[in-house]
């Protein structure tokens, strides 16, 4: 399991445009980082670069406690972006079961996730019949179903109501208390104590 995330002198370029450069920060176990910045500043790109999906123009992303960055990425992080990857025509149960077992979760994890996100009644519905907030809960359930150290979340709370923002806050707290790390792009404050890193300032 990884015990820290180290971003050094990172620069990201999309096409001709330089989104940001010389970005460095460190997250250690139990720490949450809120990425703030204007629309289009590069928060999502940063998350994708940490996940290894996007090649940075300069700089490095390192995972402490891991021999190999590719291994760490495939075993120790969850990325949940704007697009949740859920197929509208399949049931929430099928989609969650796939996402969880693809990420190394098991039956017990699925049950835990359904309980934590109160998905009982939703699981048998087709994903396209869910509301935006319900759909986000199904997407986030993967975090609980397959425990991993680093959570990369893009606007995780945006479609959720106030009750659910609070409950997800509880999940985040538990994750951090267990030595997990959180890197979240947000516009509203996170419901857990977090260090703010401004992108594209």
């Amino acid at each position, binding site marked *: 399991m990884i015990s820290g995330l180290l971003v050094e002198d990172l620069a990201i370029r999309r096409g001709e445009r330089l989104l940001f450069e010389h970005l460095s920060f460190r997250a250690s176990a139990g720490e949450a980082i809120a990425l703030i910045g204007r629309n289009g500043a590069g928060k999502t790109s940063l998350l994708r670069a940490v996940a290894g*999906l*996007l090649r940075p123009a300069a700089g490095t992303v390192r995972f402490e406690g891991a021999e190999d960055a590719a291994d760490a990425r*495939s075993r120790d992080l969850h*990325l949940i972006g704007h*697009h949740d990857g859920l*197929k509208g025509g*399949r049931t929430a149960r099928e989609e969650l079961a796939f*996402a969880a077992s693809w990420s190394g979760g098991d039956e017990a994890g699925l049950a835990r996730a359904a309980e934590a996100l109160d998905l009982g009644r939703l699981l048998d519905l087709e994903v396209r019949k869910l509301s935006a907030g319900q759909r986000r809960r199904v997407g986030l359930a993967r975090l609980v179903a397959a425990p991993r150290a680093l959570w990369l979340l893009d606007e995780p709370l945006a479609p959720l109501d106030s009750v659910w923002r609070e409950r997800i806050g509880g999940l985040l707290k538990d994750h951090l208390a267990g030595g997990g790390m959180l890197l979240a792009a947000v516009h509203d404050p996170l419901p857990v104590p977090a260090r703010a890193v401004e992108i594209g300032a």
Partner: protein
Amino acid sequence: MNPLLVLLRRELALAWGRGGGPLPALAFYAGVTTLVPLAVGPEPDRLAVIAPGIAWLALALASLLSLERLFERDFEDGALDLLALGEPGLEAVCAVKALAQWLATGLPLAFAAPIAALMLGAPVAIAPIVLLCALVGGLAFAFVGGMGAALTLGSRRGGVLIAVIVLPLFAPPVIFGGGALAQAASVTGGTSGLLLLCGWAAAAVALSPLAMAAACRNALD
């Protein structure tokens, strides 16, 4: 359970979920092979000669049909991020997706091929070799076609573009398969055509996942 098996099951379920699995490709295949006698004339002698070749060519075209959605949907809805980050790696993901494509459409088409050839008047003796060519060739078409599907990710009108990219790459297996069928119909016989087709399919299965994964990474970047 092995994550790649989980993925294969999901791909097959999605193939059936998105527009009836092999049914559109089979309908296209039946349509093309039915139009041939209308175009070249119904004389049994003439049809019997071209029947295996037509059945074979129509199979190559029908294999193109459902390629467009092979990566496109996962790319659009973000599932490709999840698949790319998985432990098996993107190369294995691409291989499984192409395999599922073959199982979902290539296999049913392969069993339709000898039927179409017989309907057009090909001798019964040639049906097994048509089936064999269609099975092996279909595998090659699925993997090479997957390369086209991955390369066109993110472009509009991807379907036509896939055909333009992939059809020239279909030339070798079409030639080898056509040779195998001609050898089967001739008195001298021979298996070199079929062996070349098998070799080409093996190379496609081994190499195209690398190209598919590189193209997907490029699209995700």
